[in-house]
């Protein structure tokens, strides 16, 4: 996963404040959190920064797939093992006769399921990392053998 520092090193670092932030590092963090877009940095679109702009687009592309919770699934890495499905506390609470006991989900209110051999996230809104009372749950990332699940 890209870091704020890597993003910062590719910005013009003019500290022009056109993005609304006092420093380019603050913009870098906001880009990582998806609170700002690259369009919010006009100096970046000067032709002399074309290479850096392309690199930034490449680095930030995976974040566009991330859900509102910041969850990203790298399908090509997923084993389809179902560890995340079974370990997810929301899955367990909402699906006591399915995910909780190691079977495929029987409830529609689960966050994670395995479909076509890889994990999918049909209900990201139910995730504990989302919403006003969000907490830093990492049950799915901690149980993944291949880092197929990440959070932004």
């Amino acid at each position, binding site marked *: 996963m890209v870091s704020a520092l890597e993003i910062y090193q590719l910005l013009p670092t003019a500290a022009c404040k056109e993005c609304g932030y006092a420093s380019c590092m603050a913009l870098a963090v906001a880009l990582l959190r998806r609170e700002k877009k690259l369009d919010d940095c006009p100096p970046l679109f000067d032709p002399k920064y074309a290479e850096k702009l392309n690199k930034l687009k490449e680095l930030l592309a995976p974040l566009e797939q991330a859900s509102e919770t910041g969850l990203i699934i790298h399908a090509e890495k997923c084993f389809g093992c*179902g560890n995340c499905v079974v*370990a997810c506390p929301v899955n367990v609470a909402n699906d006591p006769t399915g995910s909780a006991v*190691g*079977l495929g989900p029987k409830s529609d209110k689960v966050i994670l*399921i395995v*479909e*076509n051999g890889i994990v999918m996230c049909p209900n990201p809104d139910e995730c504990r990392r989302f919403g006003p009372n969000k907490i830093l749950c990492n049950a799915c990332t901690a149980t993944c*053998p291949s880092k197929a699940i990440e959070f932004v």
Partner: protein
Amino acid sequence: MLCEDIEVALKVGAIEKSKNLCRKGQGHFQALFTERTVPCIEGIETSEEKAIAKAAEILRDADSPLFYGWSNSSLEAQKTGIELAKKLESKIDDTSSFCQGILLERVLKGTLPSCALDDVRNFADVSVFWGSDPSNSHPRHLSRFSYYPRGSKRQKGYDQDRNCVVIDVRKSSTSKLCSNYLRIPPGSDAELIEALLAIQDGKMPRFGEKKRIIELATILKKAEFGVIFPGLGLIYSLTNKMEIFDGFLAKLNAISNYKVIPMGGHYNTRGFNELMLNETGYINQVSFKNGMHHGPENDVINAAKSCDVCVVVGSDPLSALPFETAHSLAKSKLIAIDPRKSLTTEAASVVIPSAMYGLEAGGTAIRMDGLKISFEPIIESDLLSDEELLRRIIEAV
């Protein structure tokens, strides 16, 4: 293939959608649609009847036939295969011969205690993966049974209720998930066992990082219901000295409660071993020539050197076995009964296509923990199952 919660919708030539299939299972279902075998004699396509007739002709003339494979066939097919091997007074062996057989035999004869995978889910508080990497070999093992699910006595979740231990020579995918990972040098499992037993006797271990070994010994000792899942890493390390593991289990069970479930690689290895044990008193490596004999001369590695005909059922020994053995088999007359193309079917004198079990043909299998599971076909197929093909060959020889 033996997971009971799989849902699949198929369309022409592909899977439309599936649920609860791991990546391995997805691959298995996708195998329906690619590289399927056709009936062949010496590489030239023919009809199924002619291929069966040719196979029967070759077998009638054979001096020292060998029947090999079996782990990817149903119990019904395995039983028919044993009947055919008896009729032709041939040797018969399976993939467990150089694999999990050495442990499976102990489990089946009761010299190593075992249990059901559902018992693991319901009761196990310590799961030990010794020389095995289920994340790659049995992807749903941890989520369905051995670490992550709740069970009747394990209600609080894996982080409170269970310990997962991995003993391996490298940082495998499974070891990244378990807080109790012990890395040992290759081939040193016997020394580790000796060290653990020394600690049990109140002595300091003379192997590895002492603190880590003592921690491991403490975890093992405190288990209410421990299960060891040995893989090929342990088996190939101990090889013919498996009595070291027997002794370790016996001593461990004097102070704790441990079961063993060998990590069988194919879905019905145990089925063949159980049938053979009932039929002959041995799980594999049997010759039916002039009575019934058992011994290493009948295992595929040795028998390959002397067999003139080898019938391979649902297996690919030319890829899976050492070159010398594969070379010997390739020089014999190979009869391959297989739904899919492989190196073995490429080299075979006769190829007889078969239906894929669980997809195109139904049957029964015995899971690695001894549970008998029946499966029905999910699509119609004109292809005959291994059982039906072997029955036709019996009638023709």
